[in-house]
């Protein structure tokens, strides 16, 4: 049983948001092979429904903490495609002035707090951001995304316990794409039912089909409402799959092509498209109109990044400490 589709405009917007991530990242991969983007590049392709579904439930002043696989989250939290692309080019017009790169996207105005490349490292930060809101009496929510690999880290357990003890307003979203680099879940967790880990800290938890954006949104909306109401943290496991390599350096020896093909067949974008067509809300022309908008956004982002400038080396030492006016 699928959750009912939301109203038409919103359903089409979910498709639009997922396509923004997909096309943006396809372009990024291409630019990577051309060596315009360097460093590590972790693609989210296949997992778009998670970010799209969760972000649809947030307000602009809610906060997000992501991982190194965060282009999609940043984009949907309101960080501009242009500033993300420029960041990946290493240009000073990038959202982190070229100091962070793909893994460290930051945007204070959008309340997007990285871009954390230490597995598990973002969880304590999310607890702290939520604690700040709780102390200030603000009814804002902090959402923390991480992979299932992070659940074996001590920081996961410490953070769940602390968040639950102090009832801080955090939604923990585990993006279970079944592999931490090349290590399958069964090979890294003695208890593979991830929801039970969260429940052991008395954090209300549930799993959701992370390939179904409608289901993710419904589950996230319910969780966010409880969190915003001051009922403490929640945990959502989104069961998903990464279609591409872990990063651009990965021969994918740990899984067979057939498995990848099967998951691709149930990809989040195809899946929503099919439902929209069945509902009579989407035809080839309407889809092409969305694709054209996305193409334009991505092309503009690349043009912006190309036109961007290199920060002068004389500025190397800036932003290590805050400049205090004397």
């Amino acid at each position, binding site marked *: 049983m699928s959750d009912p589709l939301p109203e038409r405009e919103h359903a089409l917007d979910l498709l639009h948001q997922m396509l923004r991530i997909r096309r943006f990242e396809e372009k990024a991969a291409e630019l990577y092979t051309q060596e315009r983007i360097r460093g590590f590049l972790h693609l989210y392709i296949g997992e778009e429904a998670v970010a799209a579904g969760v972000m649809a439930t947030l307000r602009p002043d809610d*906060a997000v903490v992501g991982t190194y696989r965060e282009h999609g989250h940043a984009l949907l939290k309101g960080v501009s495609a242009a500033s993300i692309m420029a960041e990946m080019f290493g240009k000073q017009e*990038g*959202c*982190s*002035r*070229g*100091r*962070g790169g793909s893994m*460290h996207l*930051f*945007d*204070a105005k959008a309340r997007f*707090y*990285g*871009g*954390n490349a*230490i597995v598990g*490292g973002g*969880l*304590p*930060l*999310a*607890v*702290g*951001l*939520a*604690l*700040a*809101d709780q*102390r*200030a009496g603000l009814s804002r929510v902090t959402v923390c995304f991480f992979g299932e690999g992070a659940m074996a880290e*001590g*920081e996961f357990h*410490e*953070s769940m*316990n*602390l968040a639950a*003890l*102090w009832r801080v307003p955090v939604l923990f979203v585990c993006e279970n794409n079944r592999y931490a680099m090349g290590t399958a879940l069964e090979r890294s967790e003695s208890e593979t039912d991830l929801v039970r880990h969260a429940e052991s800290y008395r954090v209300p938890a549930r799993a959701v089909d992370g390939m179904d954006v409608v289901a993710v949104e419904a589950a996230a909306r319910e969780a966010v409402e409880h969190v915003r109401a001051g009922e403490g943290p929640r945990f959502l496991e989104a069961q998903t799959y990464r279609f591409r390599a872990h990063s651009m350096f990965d021969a994918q020896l740990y899984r067979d092509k057939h498995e990848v093909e099967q998951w691709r067949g149930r990809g989040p974008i195809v899946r929503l498209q099919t439902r929209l067509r069945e509902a009579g809300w989407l035809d080839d022309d309407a889809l092409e109109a969305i694709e054209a908008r996305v193409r334009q956004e991505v092309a503009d982002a690349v043009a912006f990044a190309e036109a961007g400038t290199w920060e002068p080396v004389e500025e190397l030492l*800036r*932003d*290590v*400490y*805050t400049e*205090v006016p004397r």
Partner: protein
Amino acid sequence: MSRTTYREAVRAAIREAMQGDPRVFLMGEDVGAYGGCYAVSMGLLDEFGADRVRDTPLSESAFVGAGIGAAMGGQRPIVEIMTCNFSLLALDQIMNNAATIRHMSGGQLSIPVVIRMATGAGRQLAAQHSHSLEGWYAHIPGIKVLAPATLEDARGMLPTALEDPDPVLIFEHAGLYNLAGELADDAGAVPIDRAAVRRAGDRVTLVTYGGSLHKTLEAAERLAGEGVEAEVIDLRTLRPLDDATIMASVRKTHRAVIVDEGWRSGSLAAEIVARIMEQALYELDAPVARVCSAEVPIPYAKHLEHAALPQVEGIVAAVRAQLG
């Protein structure tokens, strides 16, 4: 002037900060009901309540990271780690988050967190409770590292650290909490960007900080009895280092001995020697010497622990050797 202790001076600083700014709160293991493992926060829970004096579970990484996150979210947390030995479990948060986020965000975010911890050896607690890690932390760009060694600094460094927009680590030598003396009734914030000359002299410069300051001052007194007037510099701030005060003294005395409770290899003492080489080599009349901890995990047995740490006799001997 009033009689007080180092412990009470830190407590007075925390109390004043909490009274003055509702964003300030204290969190750490046993800071509340227990009163702090060194009794620094005794009484603060009753005075400020459990929202402002937060006992945390034994989760150094989570509560230090939460302090960083809360600072990023607009609060002014004071995070207490029982001792620097346990800070290793929070090293990821300190090094990979507190120290980097300002830079990685291209200057968008500041992390005004203060992290206090006890440091040092000397109480027969054996290797795992006797580390001096302030020199390690002083290696990291993006954080500031303080080592209050006097009542004035115990009282005054915290308010300045809280005003600072960036992460500040304060290392309180565990052997100093009972240090007693007179403190001005109006003692308050002190600068955290310069070293202090604690004793003037013209024959040799002794550079030190934290728990070693008092041993060094004692050594200087002994040397004075032999007619050797040593100048004693208390670094106070280990990052950024105040080179100017060190070099001014070396230019005057032409000799330097560094006293540092850290191990010799790759130490803060090594860094200071290097800076003297870079900036004042031709002023020297003798090679710079170091008195550091022996390269051994700090042993339990009293005589061995004593032998492993910088001591007054060793400092005096190093100065005599310098003078030839």
